């Protein structure tokens, strides 16, 4: 809550040094980022999955939807059953005889690209709305805030379902629908950030010197919100990955495509659980969770690094005290 004003103070000072040494001012942040364990953990997991997605044709060549011939497999597997992992298929095959490992690798492409595009798109939409609402104030703010809050309170999944059901299934629809339902949270965060920035002197100075509103918004306000922007983007991506998987699981995306969500859909539809074929859903779920976990870690790290209060005293919200003081409050035990 009270974190925002201080954060802007710091960004403001870095804004000031920017004129003389544009890059130097950024290095401490980068260094803090590299030194942060959470950040590095998040980045490495994410980097791993992005590389896997990009290198899919080399890691697991072939069409992920191809139904493998079972003639060369042991006779026990010839029956219409998913086969467990082995030498031929690292993670076994699905109920339709597809290679789980190959699907996992190729599925990363669609899942991650949907997640990242929704993350970017909904943050941009949310930023525009939040900036406008926070900066203009008055009835524009009232209206946009009302809209934001309404979007936040309407339960996501049922809304997603009716939106997706009435539109043509496919990745583009999913991105659109998820953006439509996902912009509200970034908008809210952005708005409160703008509200605290608006009271700053350097904004007043720009207004007095006669700069136009869009210019103030985009070259004065926005650069000071970059950490919030990135944070929202990461958060929205987590949301998008989860929601995309949920939609696919319900069968509301194009189930003919290979993504992590559709893999779970097919695992469920082919009764992967009740036939004991755990390999059809466990690896996928772990990949989804790892990605979401990596992004969450990244967000915590960003918060720790860019929020001076958290950085200096690790989560003590009361500014003047440091962590040691809290622990050794005179009367508390000892």
């Amino acid at each position, binding site marked *: 809550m009270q974190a925002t004003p201080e954060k802007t103070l710091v960004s403001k000072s870095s804004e000031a040094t920017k004129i003389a040494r544009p890059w130097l001012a950024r290095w401490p942040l980068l260094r803090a980022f590299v030194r942060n364990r959470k950040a590095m953990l998040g980045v490495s997991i994410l980097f791993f999955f992005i590389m896997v997605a990009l290198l899919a044709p080399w890691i697991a060549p072939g069409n992920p939807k191809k139904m493998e011939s079972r003639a060369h497999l042991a006779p026990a597997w010839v029956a219409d059953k998913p086969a467990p992992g082995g030498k031929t298929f690292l993670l076994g095959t699905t109920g339709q005889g597809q290679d789980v490992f190959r699907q996992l690798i190729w599925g990363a492409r669609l899942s991650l690209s949907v997640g990242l595009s929704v993350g970017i798109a909904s943050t941009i939409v949310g930023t525009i709305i939040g900036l406008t609402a926070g900066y203009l104030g008055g009835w524009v703010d009232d209206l946009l805030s009302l809209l934001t809050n309404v979007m936040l309170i309407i339960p996501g999944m049922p*809304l997603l379902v*009716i939106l997706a059901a009435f539109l043509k299934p496919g990745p583009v629809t999913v991105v659109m629908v998820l953006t439509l339902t996902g912009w509200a949270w970034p908008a809210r965060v952005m708005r409160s950030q703008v509200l605290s920035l608006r009271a700053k002197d350097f904004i007043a100075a720009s207004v007095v010197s006669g700069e136009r509103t869009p210019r103030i918004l985009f070259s004065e306000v926005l650069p000071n919100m970059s950490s919030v922007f990135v944070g929202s983007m990461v958060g929205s991506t987590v949301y998008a990955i989860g929601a995309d998987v949920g939609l696919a699981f319900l069968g509301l995306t194009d189930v003919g495509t290979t993504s992590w969500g559709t893999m779970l859909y097919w695992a469920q539809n082919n009764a992967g659980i009740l036939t*004991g074929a755990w390999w059809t859903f466990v690896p996928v779920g772990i990949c989804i969770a*790892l990605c979401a976990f990596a992004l969450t870690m990244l967000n915590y790290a960003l918060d720790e690094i860019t929020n001076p209060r958290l950085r200096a005293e690790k989560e003590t919200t009361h500014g003047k005290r440091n962590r040691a003081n809290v622990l050794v409050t005179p009367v508390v035990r000892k």
Partner: protein
Amino acid sequence: MAPAPTRPRRETLKGRTMRFLLRRLGFYAVAAWVSLTVNFYLPRLMPGDPASAIFARFQGKLRPEEIDSLRKAYGLSDAPLLEQYFTYLKSLSRGEFGISINFFPAPVTTVIATGFMWTILLAGLATVISFFFGNVLGIIGAWRRNGILDSVAPPLLTFIGAFPYFFLAMLALYFLAFQAGWFPLRHAYSDALSVNWGSLTFIKSVVTHMILPASCIVLASIGGWMLGMRNTMVGILSEDYITMAQAKGLSQKRIMFSYAARNALLPNVTSFGMALGFVLSGSLLTEIIFAYPGLGYLLLQAVRNLDYPLMQGLFLMITFAVLGANFLVDILYVWLDPRTRR
């Protein structure tokens, strides 16, 4: 925003509380209206003739005359859009949400009513449990900073929270119910029993069927509550009035719960309403895994059979339920914090 200067300077506490609740009520009315309107326009945004698209599913079951009369019942006519809109609102106000295609000729409301109770039972109970224990864990974690609980639970719960709800459900179903056989595999109560809340065997069956899905929802959502509570608590613990309370020599328990936790609870109560929709979305998917006969299962049926009226009815009903629950939370908030104003 800032109170209008013309307003009388001092308002009674009751008046302020009433105004707060009325404003919230107004907000929920707007939210309800938005969802109604979205619900109205969506089918009409579909390419082609919405009526034919929706009723295409009926073809096998109904004669053309009957389809015509159904069209009328849905207000899908050639009348101007505004007129259709008012017809739609009128029929909704009479509680007519349309007729389910899948469960034809049952009205959507009847179909939903069967699942509503189970979802409220499962999601409601799980949410309350998760909220309660999450907050308690958060309080303890903050109180014993850097203790075992404080250093193990947050990363662990964050990791668990990263799993989609229904994936946790899949794991639980596979390992605990299918492999180990400790829990029933599906449904809300044993197939051999019929609904009878008076009988102990029935209630026992309901409880054993609920343990697994409910624990999945609790497990997935508890981390958020714990972290939220912990972080607010840590801030509050450094406030002067806590030091003061300690200087006065009050018991640790009293300081922890009556001084720190009570104040730290407020932000979590506010976010409770918003999280409700999220938790509900997750629990709908969890229901599907366990074939739990709640709204999630109905939603799946609706999607599978392209039962648009049922889907839309579910959307509206769930939204209204969430709005109602939020209003209850507002009342709770007022009760917890008499300073409520603005």
